[in-house]
């Protein structure tokens, strides 16, 4: 069963059920299926038959879903790009994919990224204009469907560092991963899922797939930072699940508790992702949810949803990302971890890509089906996985390996510290030493000696930063991960 099969199945079983809601309209499963079919037929009239990839750049909307599924339904892979992509990155990605067409939303059309001299040799097509054209088509002949091993979508990822790599995800990977999500987290067609996460990322896209496979209703929101709108939508649609990054959950807790109780208590599930979640956030969100669950997962675009964690009362596990998903194998690279307790995380399973998109260098991350994730972590005695950071973020001081998060956690306890980031800097004797950048809280008169003394009292001596700098801001990606490469 691929996504189109599932949508067709939903349209046949529950044709009048509202399956897709955005901030402007609602579509039943039947309406969505018909729109997708029309979209596919129209694409086939506008592109050359050898087209393998079509690009899509759009914020969350039902039109995004129509275009995404419509392209797939035409036997073509969808290249998904962030709406905030730079002109240069977009050009590079389009050239790399060999994409022959770009669909865009009306908003992204106005961003100006398509108007550079010498840009792509074709004009981006606003999704809405294609919809106008498709409205004139009346025949109901269905178009071709891809085979399981064909690429469903292609996302470029670089984590927080490195060259962007194209990650082609096949239909059978989507099916495997989505069935795991449904089985582990208990999704069903009675669910109403609020998704403020961008669909052009693996987290949000996986949520869309889950709703389609489960036959539930998805509510698509455009802005993950509009907390009031998220809470209102949960309440308005009697949502049963919400997907949000940890930073959103932490921000929720600054709002009035009565509002949170009123809006969130009906949820059976909040799913978040593997950026570290403060223990206190886990505790307080669980308290608000009463009988509902807070869950997280660990995964990459290359190996989506490799673990799952449903938080229980055991606070010792509140920083774990859980156990491997069914059918997924995870191991720690013991060979290179040396004396440290952690090593690089390797993943193998049907959720893992076979290779990157035309990128032999990146393919070296794959060894006998095992994907080297670049993340470091360890298993506890009960088989729970704990993340420690990125392999390329590990600081090696004279043979002592340190993950920056160990230092940052301690520094953030100091009154007057709003945020901090640690990273390695070259040192002639030690190889590397630690530099710490600190963003002070407003009106704080914190000085470096206070930080050093606190570190001295709470960290091993090889983890004491050798340089400290106060900064106005710490660069982060949209999931809240520190962009350390920009600090070095």
């Amino acid at each position: 069963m691929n996504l189109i099969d599932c949508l067709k199945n939903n349209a046949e079983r529950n044709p009048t059920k509202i399956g897709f809601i955005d901030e402007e309209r609602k579509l039943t499963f039947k309406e969505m299926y018909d729109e997708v079919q029309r979209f596919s037929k129209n694409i086939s009239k506008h592109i050359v038959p050898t087209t393998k990839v079509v690009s899509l750049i759009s914020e969350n909307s039902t039109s995004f879903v129509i275009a995404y599924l419509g392209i797939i339904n035409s036997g073509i892979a969808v290249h998904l790009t962030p709406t905030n992509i730079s002109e240069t990155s977009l050009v590079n990605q389009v050239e790399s994919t060999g994409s022959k067409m770009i669909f865009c939303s009306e908003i992204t059309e106005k961003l100006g990224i398509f108007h550079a001299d010498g840009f792509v040799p074709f004009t981006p097509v606003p999704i809405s204009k294609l919809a106008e054209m498709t409205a004139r088509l009346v025949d109901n002949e269905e178009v071709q469907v891809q085979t399981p091993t064909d690429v469903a979508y292609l996302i470029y990822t670089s984590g927080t560092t490195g060259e962007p790599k194209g990650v082609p995800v096949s239909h059978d990977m989507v099916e495997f991963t989505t069935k795991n999500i449904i089985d582990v987290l208990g999704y069903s067609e009675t669910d109403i899922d609020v998704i403020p996460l961008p669909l052009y990322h693996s987290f949000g896209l996986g949520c869309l797939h889950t709703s389609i496979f489960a036959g539930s209703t998805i509510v698509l929101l455009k802005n993950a930072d509009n907390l009031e709108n998220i809470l209102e939508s949960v309440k308005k649609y009697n949502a049963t699940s919400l997907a949000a990054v940890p930073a959103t959950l932490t921000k929720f807790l600054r709002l009035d508790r009565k509002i949170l109780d009123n809006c969130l208590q009906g949820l059976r599930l909040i799913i978040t992702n593997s950026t570290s979640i403060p223990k206190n956030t886990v505790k307080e969100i669980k308290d608000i949810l009463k009988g509902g669950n807070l869950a997280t997962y660990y995964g990459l675009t290359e190996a989506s949803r490799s673990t799952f964690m449903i938080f229980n009362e055991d606070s010792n596990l509140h920083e774990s990302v859980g156990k491997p998903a069914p059918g997924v194998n995870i191991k720690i690279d013991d060979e290179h971890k040396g004396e440290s307790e952690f090593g690089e995380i390797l993943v193998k399973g049907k959720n893992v890509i076979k290779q990157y998109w035309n990128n032999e260098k990146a393919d070296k991350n794959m060894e006998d089906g095992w994907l080297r994730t670049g993340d470091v972590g360890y298993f506890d005695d009960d088989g729970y996985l704990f993340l420690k950071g990125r392999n390329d973020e590990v600081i090696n001081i004279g043979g002592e390996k340190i993950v920056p998060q160990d230092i940052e956690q301690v520094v953030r306890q100091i009154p007057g510290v709003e945020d901090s980031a640690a990273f390695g800097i070259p040192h002639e004797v030690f190889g590397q030493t630690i530099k710490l950048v600190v963003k002070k809280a407003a009106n704080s008169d914190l000085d470096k000696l206070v930080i050093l003394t606190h570190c001295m009292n709470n960290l091993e001596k090889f983890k004491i930063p050798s340089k400290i700098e106060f900064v106005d801001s710490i660069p982060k990606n949209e999931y809240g991960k520190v962009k350390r490469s920009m600090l070095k």
Partner: protein
Amino acid sequence: MVKEIFFEVFPTLAENNFGWEKEQKDYDNWDSFAQLNLITFAEAKFSIEFSLEESIEIKSARELVERINSHLK
């Protein structure tokens, strides 16, 4: 002030075990990391920056004071 740095970096150091002339080799736990910590504290406390050579050469509290003074002149 330099004495305070020594008690920060060597928290188990007793008052009567501190000596201005006491050398690195006479401390139980003055290893290369402790050396790095001493330099880091001194740089932060006096808003100065040592060269690598200076950092390596300091072997006693007295030498640390002399190096600091040379930067403050």
